[in-house]
C-alpha cells in the first residue's frame, strides 16, 4: 500500500498528489512514469512522475480527471492509500548539455516536462518553456516552471492568460528569433503532431512523450505499441519518448480511442453508483 501524503487541486480538473514510495523516489529520473492500481478491482494506468523527493521518500503525480480511474483517484484523501504502484518505468529522457532547449507543454503535459526542465537546467542548458491550455484555469504548474525556466511563455486558446493562440504560434515565434537545438513537447496528440510538423519544417530535432494505453508496463503485453519510423515500438520500454518526426500520430490517436465506449460506460457506472463510498461495506 502506498500512502497519500498530500493532495491538492492545482487547476480545473487537475489534481496533484504526493505519495509515499521511497524506493521509487530514490531511483526516479526525468521521463520515468509509474503504473498504479487503486484497489483490487482497479485497472492499471500509467502516470508520469512529475516530481520526486528522495529525502522525503515521496513522488508527485499530476493527473486530470478524465475517466473513471482518475475520478476515483481524485476522490481519495490525504492519509488514504493506493493499492499498487510499480515504477519507475520507461527510459529516462536522454539529457545532455545541448545548448538551447524549448519545452512545449499542453495541459497535463506539464507533469512530464517539469522533471525534464529541472534536469536540463542542472546540465546548464538555456531553456524556454511554452505552456498552453484551452483557458487559464487549465494551466498547470506555470509558477513552478517560471521559477526555473530562463524564459516562459503562457498561451491560451481564449487569451485568458498569456498570449492568445496555440503553443505552436509561440513556438514558431521562438524558433524564428533564436537558434533552438532541441524541442521537447508533451501534451495532447494533435498538439504534439503540430509541434512535430513545425520543427520538421524548421529542421530542429524534436522529442515527444507518448501516452498510449498500457496494461502491465514492462514490455510484456504490447498494448502500448506505437509505430516509430515504420517500426513497431513499445512505449513502456522503448519510450515513452520518441523522435517526434518519426511517430505515426494517426495510429496512436486511433489506438487511444479504441476503448472510448468502455471508458464512458465505466465512468457512467461510477458516477451513478456510490462513487466508491460504499467500497468494502
Amino acid at each position, binding site marked *: 500500500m502506498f500512502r497519500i501524503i498530500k493532495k491538492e487541486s492545482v487547476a480545473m480538473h487537475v489534481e496533484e498528489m504526493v505519495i509515499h514510495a521511497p*524506493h*521509487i523516489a*530514490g*531511483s526516479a529520473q526525468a521521463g*520515468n512514469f509509474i503504473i498504479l*492500481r487503486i484497489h483490487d*478491482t*482497479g*485497472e*492499471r494506468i500509467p502516470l508520469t512522475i512529475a516530481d520526486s523527493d528522495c529525502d522525503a521518500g515521496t513522488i508527485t503525480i499530476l493527473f486530470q480527471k478524465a475517466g*473513471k*480511474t482518475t475520478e476515483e483517484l481524485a476522490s481519495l484523501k490525504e492519509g488514504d492509500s493506493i*493499492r*499498487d*504502484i*510499480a*515504477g*519507475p*518505468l520507461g527510459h529516462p529522457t536522454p539529457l545532455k548539455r545541448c545548448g538551447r532547449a524549448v519545452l512545449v507543454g499542453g495541459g497535463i503535459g506539464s507533469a512530464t516536462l517539469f522533471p525534464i526542465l529541472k534536469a536540463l537546467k542542472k546540465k546548464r542548458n538555456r531553456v524556454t518553456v511554452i505552456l498552453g491550455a484551452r483557458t487559464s484555469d487549465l494551466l498547470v504548474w506555470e509558477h513552478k516552471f517560471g521559477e526555473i525556466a530562463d524564459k516562459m511563455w503562457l498561451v491560451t486558446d481564449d487569451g485568458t492568460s498569456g498570449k492568445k493562440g496555440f503553443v505552436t504560434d509561440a513556438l514558431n515565434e521562438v524558433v524564428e528569433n533564436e537558434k533552438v537545438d532541441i524541442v521537447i513537447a508533451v501534451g495532447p496528440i494533435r498538439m504534439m503532431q503540430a509541434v512535430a510538423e513545425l520543427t520538421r519544417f524548421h529542421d530542429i530535432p524534436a522529442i515527444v512523450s507518448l501516452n498510449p494505453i498500457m*496494461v*502491465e508496463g*514492462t*514490455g*510484456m*503485453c*504490447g*498494448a502500448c*505499441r*506505437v*509505430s516509430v519510423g515504420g517500426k*513497431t515500438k513499445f512505449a513502456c*520500454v522503448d519510450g515513452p519518448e520518441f523522435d517526434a518526426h518519426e511517430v505515426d500520430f494517426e*495510429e496512436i490517436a*486511433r*489506438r487511444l480511442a*479504441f*476503448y472510448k465506449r*468502455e*471508458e464512458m*460506460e*465505466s465512468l457512467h*457506472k461510477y458516477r451513478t453508483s456510490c462513487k466508491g463510498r460504499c467500497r468494502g461495506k
Partner: protein
Amino acid sequence: MRARNAEKRKKDFKEVALGLTEKEAVREAKRCLQCKKPMCVTGCPVEIDIPAFISAIREKDFKRGIEVIRRYNMLPAVCGRVCPQENQCQGKCVLGKKNAPVAIGALERFAADFEAKKGVPKKPEKPKLNRRSVAVIGSGPAGLTAAAVLAKTGYKVTVFEALHEAGGVLTYGIPEFRLPRKIIEREIDFVTSLGVEIKLNWVVGKIQTIDDLLKEGYDAVFIGVGAGSPRFMEIPGENLNNVYFASEYLTRVNLMKAGSFPKYDTPVKRGKRVAVVGAGNVAMDAARTAVRLGAEKVYIVYRRTSAEMPARLEEVEHAKEEGVEILFLSSPKEIIGDKHGHVSAVRCDAMRMCEPDESGRRRPECSGNEFILEVDQVIMAIGQTANPLLTRSVKKLRLWGAGYIEVDEEGATNIPGIFAGGDIATGAATVISAMGAGKRAARAIDSYIKNKK
C-alpha cells in the same frame, strides 16, 4: 480424464478437466508396471520418483503419494494440470507402446488435489537459517521453485515481482478454466510458508540493478523473468484496432479480470468472429477465452498441419469440443482494416508441406493460393521472446540469440553470483522445464555460496 460438458463450460471460466475420483485414481495406479528402470522418470524434467508416488496411490496412501511428489516438485497441482505429459513422463511409459500410457499427470493432480481437499497438514519444518540470502527475480515457475528449494536449504530468500500479483505466467497467462486461481494461490502460500518473502510491484532493473542487489548483501541472484515479450509476424495491419497480442488479451482477462468488466475496471474487446494465429498452448488458451467471452466463431490459423501443433493434446481436444475451428496450412500475410482502422479480415496464404529437407524437417511453403477470412478480431499467439528490461541493466551479462541469457547446465551465467533459468535462458518452453531449471540453479547457488565462504 473426465471433463465438463462443452456446451456448459463454454459459458464460464470454471475448470474444465474434472480430475480423477478416488476409485479411478486407484484403478489407474494399478495399471503401473512399477518398472525396475522406470523410463517415465527420465522424461520428467524434475525427476519425480513416479513409481513411488503411484505405488502409494495404489495402496490408497494418498498422503504418502503427495509427500513423494513434493520432495521433487514444488508445484504439483499446477504441473498435474499444465505439463505436456504426452511428451514427457507419459511419452516414455512402456505401456504406451501398445496401449494408453499410465495417466501420470492425472494421478499427480489427484494427489495434489487430495492434499488440498483433505487439508493434510503440510506445514513444512522451518529450516534452520544459515544467515545467507538470495534474491530471486520473477515469481513464475522458475523463480518460485528456486526460491522454495533455497528456502528449504536454509537461505533467506526474497522474490521480486514486477506485477501486483505473484505467479508470473501462471497468473497472467494461463486461464482459470485450465488452472484455477486458488490452486496457484495455494502453491504460492506453500512457498511463502517456507519463509520466502515476495515483494510485489518491484521492478528490478529500474528500482535497482542486480549489482545493487549484490552490493546490498545478497550472496547470489537468480533471474527467472521469463520470455515475456510478444513476437510479431511483421505483416501489414498488426497495429490495427482489435489486433491483440495473446499476452495482452490473456493478461486483461486473467490478471485484470476483464471478463467481469465493468465490475472490474479493465475492459477487453469481445470479438464476434475471432482469428487466433498460432497453435501452441497460448493460442488454445486465447481461442477458448474468446469462446467464453461470447465469440460466435473462433478460428485457429496455423501454417503447418495437426502433426506439428505444439499445444498439449488435451487443450486441442477441448478447444475443438468447444467449437474452435482449426485452419491448417494457413499463413496470414496481411490484416485488413475498415475505414476506422478496425480489423475486418485476414488475408492468408494457403500453404503446403514440402518434402522433408536434409534435417528431416518438413517446412510449409506457399501453394500460390490465398484466401480471405472475415473476422473482427485477431489475436497473435506466435510465441514470445526475451524481454530486455532486466538484461539491459546488467553490464557484461552474456546473452545469446534474441537476448536470452547464456547459462551453463546448472544455470550459472558468465558473472559469478548471477544465475538464471527458465524461458529467459532457454527461450519460450514449458512450466515444468522452467521449474527444473529453477531447481538445478538453486543447487548450484547453494554450492556457489558454500564455496565462497
